């Protein structure tokens, strides 16, 4: 049975409180906050992309404070080594004078790891996070150590066109639930920041969530209902991102080399559940899928050189899929149309 209104209302109150806090800390980023919270509720890792100074670190730091989760930050640099993140064994002398190898855990042993400017580290260091992100564990010298739960990697990266960056490999990109773009803020928001914040320092969250609240939210997520028609829509979206698929759009056929993986479909379903929860609904609708589809798929599509020549991005390709595919799978002749709801993209 669906989560009943009273149960949902309690969960929604928590998410609303978290969102309100985030919106108060970081002005003018409401949609971004919603997506980040959806990612957290989906237990997914998030990649934030944006130029320096747009508030990426502040957002993640505020999220950690609101959810009262342990938060650590690693500034990725080209000379950063995997052991700097995962930890290493060091030789220590015990009280009895004996010497032994002791594991010194790295910053990855936390709840929220902020991997700042992750694309400045070398591929070797970037890959050190693969097991931690997927298995939520770290293996060193044959010993596997589990990470604290929940565990999230919230990474920020500069646009890859900048100097001194190493693009993340596809395997690692695929492990991020969302890739969110943090853009510029409007003038009015900038004015508010300048006027209300001394040196731009955000206010501290005043009503953070308790561990029980967080647990309650994750429990609510387990009860979100995903109808078959919606799950089929997700499957069709992901399948259509592959060139050669019957429902693939012209843009997909022209610009995409490899489409999204099954992990993308799983991620999209989870993210849609979280988005529905944030919207105060017990079941997932088509609009929830449409809301998270771009964030889930845009970093998973591998575009070809022609896309680069034509300056077509992954977001445009995903948008073409959302425009072309009918959510309900309704196949009608071109001259017969069903009136769409106002505001629903055609």
């Amino acid at each position: 049975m669906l989560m009943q209104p009273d149960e949902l209302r309690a969960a929604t109150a928590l998410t609303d409180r978290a969102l309100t806090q985030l919106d108060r800390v970081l002005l003018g980023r409401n949609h971004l906050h919603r997506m980040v919270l959806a990612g957290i509720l989906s237990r997914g890792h998030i990649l934030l992309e944006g130029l320096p100074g747009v508030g990426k670190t502040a957002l993640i730091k505020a999220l950690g404070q609101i959810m009262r989760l342990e938060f650590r930050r690693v500034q990725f640099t080209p000379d950063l080594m995997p052991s700097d993140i995962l930890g290493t064994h060091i030789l220590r002398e015990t009280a009895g004078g004996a010497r032994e190898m002791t594991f010194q855990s790295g910053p990855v042993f936390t709840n929220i790891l902020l991997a700042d400017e992750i694309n400045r580290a070398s591929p070797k260091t970037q890959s050190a996070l693969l097991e931690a992100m997927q298995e939520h564990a770290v293996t060193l010298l044959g010993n596997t150590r589990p990470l604290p739960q929940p565990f999230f990697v919230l990474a920020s990266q500069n646009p890859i066109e900048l100097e001194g960056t190493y693009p993340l490999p596809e395997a690692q990109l695929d492990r991020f639930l969302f890739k969110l773009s943090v853009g510029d803020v409007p003038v009015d928001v900038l004015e508010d920041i300048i006027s209300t914040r001394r040196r731009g320092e955000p206010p501290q969250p005043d009503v953070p969530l308790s561990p029980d609240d967080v647990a309650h939210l994750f429990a609510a997520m387990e009860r979100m209902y995903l109808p078959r028609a919606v799950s089929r829509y997700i499957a069709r979206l992901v399948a259509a991102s592959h060139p050669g698929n019957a429902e693939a759009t012209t843009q997909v056929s022209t610009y995409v080399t490899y489409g999204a993986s099954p992990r993308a479909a799983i991620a999209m379903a989870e993210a849609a559940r979280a988005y529905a929860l944030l919207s105060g609904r017990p079941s997932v609708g088509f609009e929830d899928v449409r809301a998270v589809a771009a964030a889930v798929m845009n970093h998973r599509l591998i575009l070809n050189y022609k896309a680069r020549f034509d300056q077509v991005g992954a977001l445009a390709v995903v948008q073409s899929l959302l425009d072309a595919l009918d959510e309900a799978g309704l196949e009608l002749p071109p001259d017969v149309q069903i009136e769409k709801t106002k505001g629903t993209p055609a």
Partner: protein
Amino acid sequence: MGISLAAIGPDSGEAAVDLQETVGRFHAHLRRVLTIRLGLRFLLVWLMLWAAAGVLARVAFRAEQSLLLWGLVGLPLAGAAAVFVAGRKTPSASVLRAVLDRHGRLGGLLLAAGEGDVGQWGRQIPLVTPPTVRWRLGRQAILLLAALAFLAVGFLIPDRYLPLRPEALEIGREVQQLSEKLAVLKQEEVLPPEKAEALQQDLERIRQGALGSDPAKTMEAIDHLERSIAQSAAEAAEAAIQQTEKAARAEELADALQRLQEKMDAKQLGEAMKELGRLAEEAAAENRALADAISEELKEACNRGDLTAEQLRELSEALAECKGLQYQKLDKLVKARLVDPAELERLERAGECDGETLALALGDCEDGQALLAAIQSPDGDGLPGRGGVSRGRGDAAMTWSQGANKEDVHFQEKVLPPGAVASLKASRMTGVSAGDPTAEKPGGGSTGGALGTATAGSGAAQGQLILPEHEKAVRRYFERGKK
């Protein structure tokens, strides 16, 4: 078509039925739209095919317009196909439920309600009104009108604009006339049934193989068949005359013997009666009706030469009836225009009975031997009042007098007109027309021939150039379509 789902839940079976009804109504509505759309599309295709076939049939085969009405059969078939295909193409109920959920912005609640128990949420689901189904008819309507116009063209092409089939040669009238003649010959047993049937089949073959491109062949075949039939009819007429003559001769003798039975001596009477029996037997040999009419007792009396007065009268009546039958037979042949009416007059003359003269001759003769010999002559021409240029006694001496001189006598040379067949073979087709010829004023036409200046399809011809001997053929040609 709104529905409230407020009561959907564990205790709301009625509302769940309403949801099913709404989805069902939406499904039925969409199916109706698709059926009409597909029906029009199939109708359009059928109209195009129908019109194309109709125009082709009219132009190539000169099909009757009523024949094109068979195309109406395709309309219910198109409708049935539309219903069937629309049923398969109409989205399923689950898809339509998803459409309603999306349209009502219900966030999957309607989908969840369709898949299971939604509990208290059933009271919070708002009204759902199915979306409007829009169908753009424009292009299809234009094509449909074009197809209807195309079909109308197929139906309304006037006959005069249709090209004629050059291979068609209308000989229906000739075939009918010959068929009627054949039927008369078969009925009168002039021709055996097998031969009549064979001739009828030949006639049918000629009709089917009649080609306008080679009319000479057809006409020649018809002429040949007509001559064959006429020959059979003429032979039958001649046979009827001969039989009538034999019967008449026997009847004359029978009548004479009735009158002289008391006067003649027994020997002469016996021989005369035997001769009468021979003549009657000869007549009966070629006439089955007469043979049936003469009983065995009568034949034996004839052979014995002791016919009674009653038997003589009976024989005379049978012979008279035989003559009547022959007359009727020839009369039918004359009416069927198989035999010249003059033949009927010949038959009447052949059947004239002059029994009294014969009786007087027999009575006046002392011994009657000469007359008896005349009667016994091979063809009976020795009888008084008989004879002619081609008939007479074979042993009569030929008399030659006023012989002619053949010197300086020559046949007058005369150029004979070309035969009908030869002229047809030399003919050349310059065009055909379905309309009646328009007579033009004399002096304006060519001098090349009857149809020398006629233009194909124009219907024009020079009236004054149609020669009398061609008039019948021309009329028959232009009247072939009216039949």
